Protein backbone atom coordinates (compact mmCIF):
# COMPACT_ATOMS: atom_id res chain seq x y z
CA UNK A 1 0.00 0.00 0.00
CA UNK A 2 1.23 3.49 -0.84
CA UNK A 3 2.45 5.85 1.86
CA UNK A 4 1.33 9.32 2.79
CA UNK A 5 3.40 12.42 3.41
CA UNK A 6 1.87 14.87 5.92
CA UNK A 7 3.08 18.45 6.16
CA UNK A 8 1.88 21.69 7.77
CA UNK A 9 2.95 25.10 9.08
CA UNK A 10 4.77 26.30 5.96
CA UNK A 11 3.48 29.85 6.54
CA UNK A 12 4.47 31.02 3.08
CA UNK A 13 7.87 29.28 3.05
CA UNK A 14 8.17 28.08 -0.55
CA UNK A 15 11.76 26.94 -0.01
CA UNK A 16 10.71 24.58 2.75
CA UNK A 17 7.94 23.23 0.50
CA UNK A 18 10.38 22.69 -2.36
CA UNK A 19 12.80 20.94 -0.02
CA UNK A 20 10.04 18.56 1.09
CA UNK A 21 8.95 17.91 -2.52
CA UNK A 22 12.61 17.20 -3.36
CA UNK A 23 12.79 14.74 -0.44
CA UNK A 24 9.59 13.02 -1.57
CA UNK A 25 10.92 12.63 -5.10
CA UNK A 26 13.57 10.32 -3.65
CA UNK A 27 11.32 8.54 -1.17
CA UNK A 28 9.76 5.32 -2.42
CA UNK A 29 6.06 4.54 -2.37
CA UNK A 30 4.81 7.97 -1.28
CA UNK A 31 1.87 8.77 -3.53
CA UNK A 32 -0.24 11.16 -1.47
CA UNK A 33 0.69 14.52 -0.02
CA UNK A 34 -1.56 16.00 2.65
CA UNK A 35 -1.07 19.62 3.69
CA UNK A 36 -2.75 20.09 7.06
CA UNK A 37 -3.13 23.86 6.99
CA UNK A 38 -1.14 26.93 7.96
CA UNK A 39 0.26 27.40 4.47
CA UNK A 40 0.01 31.13 5.17
CA UNK A 41 1.28 33.37 7.98
CA UNK A 42 1.99 37.05 8.63
CA UNK A 43 5.80 36.85 8.58
CA UNK A 44 6.33 36.80 4.79
CA UNK A 45 4.48 37.10 1.51
CA UNK A 46 2.68 33.82 0.82
CA UNK A 47 1.58 34.34 -2.79
CA UNK A 48 4.33 32.28 -4.42
CA UNK A 49 3.63 29.26 -2.20
CA UNK A 50 -0.13 29.61 -2.71
CA UNK A 51 0.31 29.69 -6.50
CA UNK A 52 2.56 26.66 -6.37
CA UNK A 53 0.09 24.64 -4.29
CA UNK A 54 -2.61 25.42 -6.84
CA UNK A 55 -0.35 24.74 -9.84
CA UNK A 56 2.18 22.03 -8.98
CA UNK A 57 5.27 21.63 -11.17
CA UNK A 58 5.84 18.53 -13.27
CA UNK A 59 6.97 15.61 -11.16
CA UNK A 60 5.68 17.11 -7.92
CA UNK A 61 3.06 15.38 -5.83
CA UNK A 62 -0.23 17.27 -6.06
CA UNK A 63 -1.05 18.49 -2.54
CA UNK A 64 -4.41 17.89 -0.86
CA UNK A 65 -4.87 20.86 1.43
CA UNK A 66 -6.94 21.71 4.51
CA UNK A 67 -7.33 25.08 6.11
CA UNK A 68 -5.41 25.74 9.31
CA UNK A 69 -5.59 28.32 12.08
CA UNK A 70 -3.95 31.09 10.00
CA UNK A 71 -6.24 30.50 7.00
CA UNK A 72 -9.23 30.54 9.35
CA UNK A 73 -8.16 33.89 10.79
CA UNK A 74 -7.67 35.39 7.33
CA UNK A 75 -10.98 34.01 6.05
CA UNK A 76 -12.74 35.45 9.11
CA UNK A 77 -11.12 38.86 8.70
CA UNK A 78 -12.06 38.94 5.01
CA UNK A 79 -15.71 38.21 5.86
CA UNK A 80 -15.85 34.50 4.90
CA UNK A 81 -16.94 33.37 8.40
CA UNK A 82 -20.23 35.22 8.87
CA UNK A 83 -19.98 37.93 11.50
CA UNK A 84 -16.74 36.58 13.00
CA UNK A 85 -13.44 38.44 12.44
CA UNK A 86 -9.81 37.52 13.24
CA UNK A 87 -10.51 38.14 16.92
CA UNK A 88 -8.26 35.36 18.21
CA UNK A 89 -5.29 36.76 16.29
CA UNK A 90 -6.10 40.33 17.27
CA UNK A 91 -6.30 39.32 20.93
CA UNK A 92 -3.08 37.29 20.98
CA UNK A 93 -0.81 39.28 18.62
CA UNK A 94 -2.43 42.66 18.11
CA UNK A 95 -3.66 44.71 15.18
CA UNK A 96 -0.24 44.73 13.50
CA UNK A 97 -0.33 40.98 13.06
CA UNK A 98 -3.80 41.20 11.50
CA UNK A 99 -2.54 43.84 9.05
CA UNK A 100 0.56 41.80 8.25
CA UNK A 101 -1.59 38.74 7.53
CA UNK A 102 -3.83 40.73 5.19
CA UNK A 103 -0.74 42.04 3.38
CA UNK A 104 0.81 38.58 3.08
CA UNK A 105 -1.93 37.11 0.87
CA UNK A 106 -3.17 38.50 -2.42
CA UNK A 107 -7.02 38.69 -2.37
CA UNK A 108 -6.98 36.68 -5.61
CA UNK A 109 -6.23 33.57 -3.54
CA UNK A 110 -9.27 33.96 -1.27
CA UNK A 111 -11.54 31.86 -3.49
CA UNK A 112 -9.14 28.90 -3.31
CA UNK A 113 -8.64 29.34 0.46
CA UNK A 114 -12.39 29.53 1.05
CA UNK A 115 -12.84 26.15 -0.67
CA UNK A 116 -10.46 24.34 1.70
CA UNK A 117 -11.98 21.76 4.02
CA UNK A 118 -11.78 21.37 7.79
CA UNK A 119 -10.50 17.79 7.69
CA UNK A 120 -10.07 14.56 5.73
CA UNK A 121 -11.08 11.06 6.77
CA UNK A 122 -8.84 8.48 5.10
CA UNK A 123 -9.30 4.81 6.01
CA UNK A 124 -9.62 4.87 9.81
CA UNK A 125 -7.59 8.08 10.17
CA UNK A 126 -8.70 11.66 10.68
CA UNK A 127 -6.40 14.30 9.19
CA UNK A 128 -6.94 17.67 10.85
CA UNK A 129 -5.13 20.87 11.57
CA UNK A 130 -6.22 21.16 15.21
CA UNK A 131 -8.70 18.53 16.31
CA UNK A 132 -12.22 17.33 15.73
CA UNK A 133 -13.35 20.04 18.18
CA UNK A 134 -11.84 23.15 16.58
CA UNK A 135 -9.10 24.24 14.23
CA UNK A 136 -7.33 26.00 17.11
CA UNK A 137 -7.20 22.93 19.36
CA UNK A 138 -3.49 22.44 20.06
CA UNK A 139 -2.79 18.81 20.91
CA UNK A 140 0.68 17.87 22.13
CA UNK A 141 2.57 15.25 24.15
CA UNK A 142 1.33 16.87 27.38
CA UNK A 143 -2.35 17.01 26.42
CA UNK A 144 -4.75 15.30 28.78
CA UNK A 145 -5.36 11.70 27.61
CA UNK A 146 -9.07 12.22 28.40
CA UNK A 147 -9.15 15.14 25.99
CA UNK A 148 -7.32 13.13 23.32
CA UNK A 149 -9.73 10.24 23.70
CA UNK A 150 -12.65 12.63 23.33
CA UNK A 151 -11.19 14.10 20.15
CA UNK A 152 -10.71 10.61 18.70
CA UNK A 153 -14.21 9.55 19.72
CA UNK A 154 -15.83 12.55 18.05
CA UNK A 155 -14.54 11.44 14.65
CA UNK A 156 -14.92 7.71 15.35
CA UNK A 157 -11.43 7.07 14.02
CA UNK A 158 -8.48 5.07 15.32
CA UNK A 159 -5.80 7.61 14.45
CA UNK A 160 -5.86 11.36 14.49
CA UNK A 161 -3.12 13.33 12.72
CA UNK A 162 -2.80 16.87 14.04
CA UNK A 163 -0.55 19.80 13.20
CA UNK A 164 -1.54 22.78 15.33
CA UNK A 165 1.12 22.39 18.02
CA UNK A 166 3.85 22.09 15.38
CA UNK A 167 5.39 19.21 17.36
CA UNK A 168 6.24 15.72 16.17
CA UNK A 169 4.87 13.23 18.66
CA UNK A 170 2.80 10.11 19.04
CA UNK A 171 0.51 9.26 21.90
CA UNK A 172 -0.92 5.76 21.92
CA UNK A 173 -3.79 4.89 24.21
CA UNK A 174 -2.82 1.45 25.47
CA UNK A 175 -5.28 0.57 28.21
CA UNK A 176 -7.61 1.56 31.02
CA UNK A 177 -11.37 1.84 31.44
CA UNK A 178 -14.22 3.51 33.24
CA UNK A 179 -17.39 2.58 35.15
CA UNK A 180 -20.63 4.33 34.34
CA UNK A 181 -23.89 4.07 36.22
CA UNK A 182 -27.07 5.60 34.82
CA UNK A 183 -30.36 5.97 36.67
CA UNK A 184 -33.49 7.23 34.95
CA UNK A 185 -37.25 6.67 35.13
CA UNK A 186 -36.80 3.16 33.75
CA UNK A 187 -34.30 2.05 36.40
CA UNK A 188 -30.58 1.71 36.84
CA UNK A 189 -27.94 0.48 34.39
CA UNK A 190 -24.27 -0.31 34.83
CA UNK A 191 -21.73 -0.08 32.08
CA UNK A 192 -18.02 -0.86 31.97
CA UNK A 193 -16.13 0.69 29.09
CA UNK A 194 -12.54 0.02 28.06
CA UNK A 195 -10.15 2.48 26.52
CA UNK A 196 -9.99 1.70 22.80
CA UNK A 197 -6.56 1.26 21.20
CA UNK A 198 -6.17 4.58 19.44
CA UNK A 199 -3.46 7.05 18.61
CA UNK A 200 -2.84 10.76 18.12
CA UNK A 201 0.10 11.75 15.93
CA UNK A 202 1.60 15.23 15.73
CA UNK A 203 3.06 15.65 12.25
CA UNK A 204 5.37 18.64 12.82
CA UNK A 205 5.60 21.97 10.99
CA UNK A 206 7.72 23.65 8.31
CA UNK A 207 10.52 21.35 7.16
CA UNK A 208 9.54 18.83 9.85
CA UNK A 209 7.07 16.41 8.35
CA UNK A 210 5.75 12.87 8.69
CA UNK A 211 5.59 9.83 6.44
CA UNK A 212 2.85 7.34 7.32
CA UNK A 213 2.38 3.85 5.94
CA UNK A 214 -1.27 2.81 6.43
CA UNK A 215 -0.44 -0.76 5.39
CA UNK A 216 1.98 -1.38 8.25
CA UNK A 217 0.82 1.44 10.56
CA UNK A 218 4.43 2.70 10.68
CA UNK A 219 5.23 6.37 10.74
CA UNK A 220 8.47 8.32 10.45
CA UNK A 221 9.21 11.82 11.64
CA UNK A 222 11.49 13.51 9.14
CA UNK A 223 13.07 16.88 8.42
CA UNK A 224 13.46 17.95 4.79
CA UNK A 225 17.06 17.43 3.68
CA UNK A 226 17.62 14.48 6.03
CA UNK A 227 17.02 11.80 3.38
CA UNK A 228 20.27 10.09 4.21
CA UNK A 229 18.98 9.32 7.71
CA UNK A 230 15.88 7.77 6.30
CA UNK A 231 17.88 5.61 3.90
CA UNK A 232 19.94 4.45 6.85
CA UNK A 233 16.73 3.11 8.39
CA UNK A 234 16.05 1.15 5.23
CA UNK A 235 13.04 3.01 3.90
CA UNK A 236 14.21 4.41 0.57
Amino acid sequence: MARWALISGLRGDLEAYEAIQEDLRHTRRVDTLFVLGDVIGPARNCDALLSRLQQPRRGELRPQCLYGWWEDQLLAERGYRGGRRADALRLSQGETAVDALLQAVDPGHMGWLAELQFGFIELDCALLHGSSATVEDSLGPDSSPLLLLDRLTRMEVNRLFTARSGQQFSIELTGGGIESQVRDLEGQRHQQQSVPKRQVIGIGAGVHYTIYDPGTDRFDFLAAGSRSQERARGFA
Partner: protein
Amino acid sequence: MAHAVISCLHANHAALEAVLADIDQQGIDTITCLGDLVGYGPQPNEVVELIRQRAIPTCQGCWDEDIIEGLNACDCSYPSQLAERRGHLAHQWTADQLSEENKDFLANLPMSLRRDRLLFVHGSPNSQHEYLLPNMDAFAALERVETAEADTLFCGHTHHPYVRELRDGSIRVRVQEGVASGGPSEEREINLPVRRIINAGSVGEPRHGNTNATYVIHDEQTGTVEIREVAYDVERTCRAIVESGLPAIFAWRLRHGFEYAERADDASHVCER
Protein backbone atom coordinates in the same frame (compact mmCIF):
# COMPACT_ATOMS: atom_id res chain seq x y z
CA MET B 1 -29.32 21.94 51.14
CA ALA B 2 -31.78 20.61 48.60
CA HIS B 3 -32.27 22.56 45.40
CA ALA B 4 -34.43 21.99 42.35
CA VAL B 5 -33.34 22.12 38.71
CA ILE B 6 -35.84 22.58 35.89
CA SER B 7 -35.32 22.72 32.12
CA CYS B 8 -37.00 22.88 28.72
CA LEU B 9 -40.24 24.65 29.65
CA HIS B 10 -41.22 25.24 26.01
CA ALA B 11 -43.92 27.83 26.69
CA ASN B 12 -46.09 25.34 28.59
CA HIS B 13 -47.59 27.44 31.40
CA ALA B 14 -49.75 24.76 33.00
CA ALA B 15 -46.77 22.43 33.27
CA LEU B 16 -44.55 25.13 34.78
CA GLU B 17 -47.19 26.09 37.35
CA ALA B 18 -47.59 22.45 38.39
CA VAL B 19 -43.83 21.93 38.74
CA LEU B 20 -43.33 25.11 40.77
CA ALA B 21 -46.22 24.09 43.05
CA ASP B 22 -44.57 20.68 43.54
CA ILE B 23 -41.25 22.35 44.44
CA ASP B 24 -42.95 24.81 46.83
CA GLN B 25 -44.80 22.00 48.54
CA GLN B 26 -41.47 20.45 49.50
CA GLY B 27 -40.21 23.68 51.02
CA ILE B 28 -37.41 24.06 48.46
CA ASP B 29 -36.59 27.68 47.66
CA THR B 30 -33.49 27.38 45.48
CA ILE B 31 -34.41 26.70 41.87
CA THR B 32 -32.19 26.83 38.78
CA CYS B 33 -33.55 26.78 35.24
CA LEU B 34 -31.54 25.42 32.30
CA GLY B 35 -33.27 27.33 29.53
CA ASP B 36 -35.56 26.70 26.55
CA LEU B 37 -38.27 28.78 28.15
CA VAL B 38 -40.00 29.13 24.78
CA GLY B 39 -40.52 27.23 21.54
CA TYR B 40 -43.47 25.13 20.22
CA GLY B 41 -45.72 25.80 23.23
CA PRO B 42 -48.57 28.36 23.30
CA GLN B 43 -47.64 30.67 26.22
CA PRO B 44 -44.14 32.10 25.73
CA ASN B 45 -44.82 35.43 27.46
CA GLU B 46 -46.61 33.85 30.43
CA VAL B 47 -43.76 31.40 31.01
CA VAL B 48 -40.98 34.00 30.73
CA GLU B 49 -42.89 36.31 33.04
CA LEU B 50 -43.41 33.61 35.66
CA ILE B 51 -39.67 32.83 35.66
CA ARG B 52 -38.88 36.55 35.96
CA GLN B 53 -41.44 37.09 38.69
CA ARG B 54 -40.02 34.20 40.73
CA ALA B 55 -36.48 35.48 39.99
CA ILE B 56 -35.27 31.98 39.09
CA PRO B 57 -31.61 32.01 37.94
CA THR B 58 -31.69 30.78 34.35
CA CYS B 59 -29.18 30.00 31.62
CA GLN B 60 -29.94 30.36 27.94
CA GLY B 61 -31.26 27.45 25.91
CA CYS B 62 -30.96 26.95 22.16
CA TRP B 63 -34.52 28.16 21.54
CA ASP B 64 -33.99 31.26 23.70
CA GLU B 65 -30.87 32.04 21.69
CA ASP B 66 -32.51 31.41 18.32
CA ILE B 67 -35.50 33.63 19.08
CA ILE B 68 -33.12 36.50 19.70
CA GLU B 69 -30.45 35.81 17.11
CA GLY B 70 -32.73 34.70 14.33
CA LEU B 71 -32.73 31.09 13.25
CA ASN B 72 -29.30 30.06 14.35
CA ALA B 73 -29.84 26.35 14.34
CA CYS B 74 -28.41 24.75 11.23
CA ASP B 75 -30.48 22.42 9.05
CA CYS B 76 -28.69 19.45 10.51
CA SER B 77 -30.25 19.98 13.93
CA TYR B 78 -33.59 18.84 12.48
CA PRO B 79 -34.00 15.17 11.70
CA SER B 80 -36.42 15.70 8.81
CA GLN B 81 -37.84 18.31 6.48
CA LEU B 82 -41.17 18.00 8.32
CA ALA B 83 -39.51 18.68 11.69
CA GLU B 84 -37.64 21.60 10.21
CA ARG B 85 -40.75 23.21 8.70
CA ARG B 86 -42.65 22.77 11.95
CA GLY B 87 -39.69 24.14 13.91
CA HIS B 88 -39.51 27.20 11.66
CA LEU B 89 -43.24 27.77 11.98
CA ALA B 90 -43.03 27.57 15.78
CA HIS B 91 -40.03 29.88 15.72
CA GLN B 92 -41.83 32.51 13.66
CA TRP B 93 -44.97 32.30 15.78
CA THR B 94 -42.98 32.62 19.03
CA ALA B 95 -40.91 35.53 17.73
CA ASP B 96 -44.13 37.36 16.78
CA GLN B 97 -45.74 36.74 20.17
CA LEU B 98 -42.88 37.57 22.54
CA SER B 99 -42.86 41.08 23.98
CA GLU B 100 -39.73 43.17 23.50
CA GLU B 101 -39.14 43.12 27.24
CA ASN B 102 -39.26 39.34 27.36
CA LYS B 103 -36.99 39.04 24.31
CA ASP B 104 -34.56 41.31 26.09
CA PHE B 105 -34.67 39.05 29.13
CA LEU B 106 -33.89 35.97 27.00
CA ALA B 107 -31.10 37.82 25.17
CA ASN B 108 -29.31 38.59 28.41
CA LEU B 109 -29.40 35.09 29.88
CA PRO B 110 -25.92 33.65 30.58
CA MET B 111 -24.69 30.55 28.73
CA SER B 112 -23.91 28.82 32.02
CA LEU B 113 -24.28 29.28 35.76
CA ARG B 114 -21.80 28.07 38.36
CA ARG B 115 -22.12 27.50 42.10
CA ASP B 116 -18.84 26.21 43.54
CA ARG B 117 -18.23 22.92 41.73
CA LEU B 118 -21.77 22.69 40.33
CA LEU B 119 -22.13 23.79 36.72
CA PHE B 120 -25.49 24.47 35.04
CA VAL B 121 -25.82 24.49 31.23
CA HIS B 122 -28.57 23.85 28.68
CA GLY B 123 -26.93 21.34 26.30
CA SER B 124 -23.29 20.85 27.20
CA PRO B 125 -20.45 23.15 28.31
CA ASN B 126 -19.43 23.26 24.61
CA SER B 127 -22.72 24.23 23.05
CA GLN B 128 -26.41 24.78 23.70
CA HIS B 129 -27.06 22.44 20.78
CA GLU B 130 -25.03 19.43 21.95
CA TYR B 131 -27.01 16.53 23.41
CA LEU B 132 -25.50 14.70 26.37
CA LEU B 133 -27.49 11.49 26.09
CA PRO B 134 -27.38 8.95 28.94
CA ASN B 135 -25.63 6.37 26.77
CA MET B 136 -23.02 8.63 25.19
CA ASP B 137 -19.41 7.47 25.32
CA ALA B 138 -18.44 7.55 29.01
CA PHE B 139 -15.02 9.10 28.40
CA ALA B 140 -16.48 11.83 26.19
CA ALA B 141 -19.12 12.51 28.86
CA LEU B 142 -16.45 12.74 31.55
CA GLU B 143 -14.40 15.05 29.34
CA ARG B 144 -17.31 17.52 29.18
CA VAL B 145 -17.50 17.75 32.98
CA GLU B 146 -13.75 17.71 33.56
CA THR B 147 -12.85 20.32 30.93
CA ALA B 148 -15.51 22.59 32.43
CA GLU B 149 -13.83 22.18 35.85
CA ALA B 150 -16.95 20.92 37.58
CA ASP B 151 -17.78 18.00 39.86
CA THR B 152 -21.42 17.84 38.88
CA LEU B 153 -22.81 19.04 35.57
CA PHE B 154 -26.52 19.84 35.31
CA CYS B 155 -27.90 19.82 31.78
CA GLY B 156 -31.19 19.57 29.90
CA HIS B 157 -31.88 19.67 26.14
CA THR B 158 -32.44 15.91 25.71
CA HIS B 159 -35.79 16.03 27.60
CA HIS B 160 -34.80 12.71 29.13
CA PRO B 161 -34.07 13.03 32.87
CA TYR B 162 -31.22 10.91 34.24
CA VAL B 163 -28.35 10.77 36.72
CA ARG B 164 -25.04 9.42 35.48
CA GLU B 165 -22.03 8.71 37.66
CA LEU B 166 -18.63 8.16 36.04
CA ARG B 167 -16.02 6.54 38.29
CA ASP B 168 -12.97 4.27 38.58
CA GLY B 169 -11.64 5.63 35.32
CA SER B 170 -8.05 5.37 34.13
CA ILE B 171 -6.19 5.77 30.85
CA ARG B 172 -2.74 4.35 30.02
CA VAL B 173 -0.71 5.97 27.28
CA ARG B 174 2.60 5.47 25.48
CA VAL B 175 4.21 8.75 24.46
CA GLN B 176 6.94 9.24 21.86
CA GLU B 177 8.31 12.69 21.17
CA GLY B 178 10.18 13.43 17.95
CA VAL B 179 11.03 9.78 17.31
CA ALA B 180 9.51 7.39 14.83
CA SER B 181 7.72 4.06 15.26
CA GLY B 182 9.75 1.73 17.37
CA GLY B 183 11.80 4.49 19.00
CA PRO B 184 12.11 5.08 22.76
CA SER B 185 8.84 5.83 24.49
CA GLU B 186 7.46 6.71 27.89
CA GLU B 187 4.47 4.96 29.51
CA ARG B 188 2.05 6.89 31.70
CA GLU B 189 -1.20 6.13 33.49
CA ILE B 190 -3.64 8.71 34.72
CA ASN B 191 -6.50 8.09 37.11
CA LEU B 192 -9.71 9.90 36.25
CA PRO B 193 -11.82 11.69 38.87
CA VAL B 194 -15.39 10.75 39.85
CA ARG B 195 -17.88 13.05 38.15
CA ARG B 196 -21.65 13.29 37.75
CA ILE B 197 -24.00 14.44 35.01
CA ILE B 198 -27.57 15.21 36.05
CA ASN B 199 -30.14 15.82 33.34
CA ALA B 200 -33.21 17.70 34.54
CA GLY B 201 -35.57 16.34 31.86
CA SER B 202 -38.30 18.63 30.56
CA VAL B 203 -41.13 20.55 32.17
CA GLY B 204 -43.00 21.43 28.99
CA GLU B 205 -42.26 18.81 26.34
CA PRO B 206 -41.78 15.31 27.72
CA ARG B 207 -39.85 12.65 25.88
CA HIS B 208 -39.89 9.82 28.40
CA GLY B 209 -42.98 7.99 27.29
CA ASN B 210 -45.80 9.78 29.07
CA THR B 211 -47.20 13.29 29.43
CA ASN B 212 -45.88 14.16 32.91
CA ALA B 213 -43.51 17.05 33.46
CA THR B 214 -40.10 16.07 34.89
CA TYR B 215 -37.44 17.85 36.93
CA VAL B 216 -34.79 16.95 39.54
CA ILE B 217 -34.07 17.69 43.19
CA HIS B 218 -30.44 17.49 44.29
CA ASP B 219 -29.31 17.46 47.91
CA GLU B 220 -25.80 18.87 48.11
CA GLN B 221 -25.14 17.46 51.59
CA THR B 222 -26.15 13.87 50.95
CA GLY B 223 -25.50 13.87 47.20
CA THR B 224 -28.89 12.29 46.52
CA VAL B 225 -30.79 13.10 43.36
CA GLU B 226 -34.53 12.59 42.99
CA ILE B 227 -36.11 12.56 39.52
CA ARG B 228 -39.61 14.00 39.97
CA GLU B 229 -42.58 13.36 37.68
CA VAL B 230 -45.48 15.80 37.94
CA ALA B 231 -48.88 15.36 36.33
CA TYR B 232 -50.45 18.57 35.06
CA ASP B 233 -53.47 19.69 33.08
CA VAL B 234 -52.24 18.68 29.60
CA GLU B 235 -55.61 19.47 28.03
CA ARG B 236 -55.33 23.09 29.18
CA THR B 237 -52.12 23.46 27.17
CA CYS B 238 -53.58 21.54 24.21
CA ARG B 239 -56.58 23.90 24.12
CA ALA B 240 -54.25 26.88 24.25
CA ILE B 241 -52.25 25.46 21.32
CA VAL B 242 -55.34 25.20 19.13
CA GLU B 243 -56.78 28.56 20.27
CA SER B 244 -53.50 30.35 19.62
CA GLY B 245 -53.43 29.20 16.00
CA LEU B 246 -50.45 26.86 16.36
CA PRO B 247 -50.83 23.61 14.36
CA ALA B 248 -53.31 21.17 15.93
CA ILE B 249 -50.75 18.42 15.39
CA PHE B 250 -48.68 19.99 18.22
CA ALA B 251 -51.61 19.42 20.59
CA TRP B 252 -51.99 15.83 19.39
CA ARG B 253 -48.30 15.12 19.94
CA LEU B 254 -48.24 16.71 23.41
CA ARG B 255 -51.41 14.84 24.45
CA HIS B 256 -49.79 11.53 23.50
CA GLY B 257 -46.42 12.20 25.11
CA PHE B 258 -44.53 12.66 21.83
CA GLU B 259 -42.17 15.60 21.50
CA TYR B 260 -43.29 18.33 19.08
CA ALA B 261 -40.51 17.50 16.62
CA GLU B 262 -38.53 14.30 16.81
CA ARG B 263 -34.99 14.65 18.03
CA ALA B 264 -32.09 14.27 15.63
CA ASP B 265 -30.91 10.68 15.20
CA ASP B 266 -27.29 11.59 15.67
CA ALA B 267 -27.65 13.40 18.93
CA SER B 268 -23.94 13.87 19.44
CA HIS B 269 -23.77 15.89 16.25
CA VAL B 270 -22.46 19.37 16.84
CA CYS B 271 -22.81 21.77 13.98
CA GLU B 272 -19.59 23.37 12.69
CA ARG B 273 -21.27 26.72 12.28
